[in-house]
């Protein structure tokens, strides 16, 4: 990383630099020089340095001595079982698919129920219609009176007249149309 000439650095740059790493003796001298010129910034700069020291002094996290061995061993193992009882079907796929699958299962469960309900309703409607028709027929039958038997006595003769010869009697028509009549 390229280092700047300390003489080109202002107090803000030196402060930001000190967040990341200890200042070099040259940078420190430059900071002291600048602080002599701007004593108002001294307490803020000192607080900043002290905070950096506190953060830097946080102890290292403990690392097990066999850490590398554990990592290398894990390389040879198949996909690790997810910790904390998490399902292997997790992550973005689960988030994406789970609601859809739930809706699909619900639809599969509700579809036969809906069909059975529809069928039952249709059967009820048909039964009601048949009952209505039966009722109407029986009421109509009672209302229309059966004709007396005397009418039916000449039924066959009358019926034969219906099928009598329908050929026109030309002679009779001519006689009726003659002027003498």
């Amino acid at each position, binding site marked *: *990383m390229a280092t700047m000439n300390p003489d080109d650095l202002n107090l803000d740059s030196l402060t*930001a630099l000190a*967040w*990341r*790493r200890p200042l070099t003796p040259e940078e420190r001298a430059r*900071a*002291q020089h600048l*602080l002599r010129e701007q004593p108002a910034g*001294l*307490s803020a*700069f*000192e*607080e*900043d*340095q*002290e*905070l950096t020291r*506190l*953060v*830097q*002094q*946080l*102890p*290292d*996290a*403990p*690392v*097990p001595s066999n*850490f*590398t061995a*554990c*990592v*290398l061993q*894990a*390389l040879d193992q198949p996909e690790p079982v997810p*910790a*904390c009882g998490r399902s292997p079907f997790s992550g973005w796929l689960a988030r994406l698919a789970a609601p859809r699958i739930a809706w699909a299962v619900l639809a599969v469960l509700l579809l036969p129920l809906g069909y059975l309900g529809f069928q039952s309703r249709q059967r009820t409607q048909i039964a009601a219609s048949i009952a209505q028709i039966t009722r109407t027929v029986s009421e109509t039958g009672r209302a229309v009176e059966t004709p007396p038997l005397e009418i039916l006595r000449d039924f066959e003769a009358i019926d034969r007249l219906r099928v009598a010869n329908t050929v026109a009697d030309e002679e009779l028509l001519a006689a009726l149309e003659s002027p003498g009549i």
Partner: protein
Amino acid sequence: MVAKPDADAARMLRVKRGDRRAFAELVDQYQQPVMNLVYRMIGDRAEAEDLAQNVFLQVYKSAHRYRETARFSTWLFTIARNLCLNELRRRSRHPAESLDLPHPEDENQPFHPVEDVRAVSPPDALLRRELEQKVQETLDALPANQRLALLLCRQDELSYEEIAKILRCSLSATKSLIHRARETLKQRLKPYLRSGTW
């Protein structure tokens, strides 16, 4: 950003070709910084170990995607960042009490399980431990992106440009995140900040 290939990038190219020894060297070299970052982000020792291990497994599995255009450490900490944020998101969805965090009733439980080997008198050690705990609590209270920015800033080898790349935000936004984090820390740790050292 870095044009010339660094030694770690060269090792990573060997890992790409399936060289496990090179991978082991990278794990040896970076286990402490990765563990520091993950532990300070997650706050739970056991989970931090698992997560740090996953970071390196991810490095190995994704080796074919590594390009020499970025420094290895930038790529590594980007993976660590993603896994930490995923874990924090998972925790916010399924909150659970950590077994590692000290219970208020259990006063004898030390926050940091590793004893400092440097010779310090008991009262000093106690004060320092209290101060560390206070700093950690203040860090924990920061928003995740500010905490991450501040912790990455602790890594000597990362420049601001590289931190910005890891955080996937602009350089100015990165500096702003660090500044805000530091201002919050300063306010909350004011009683602990000595002056007169300059």
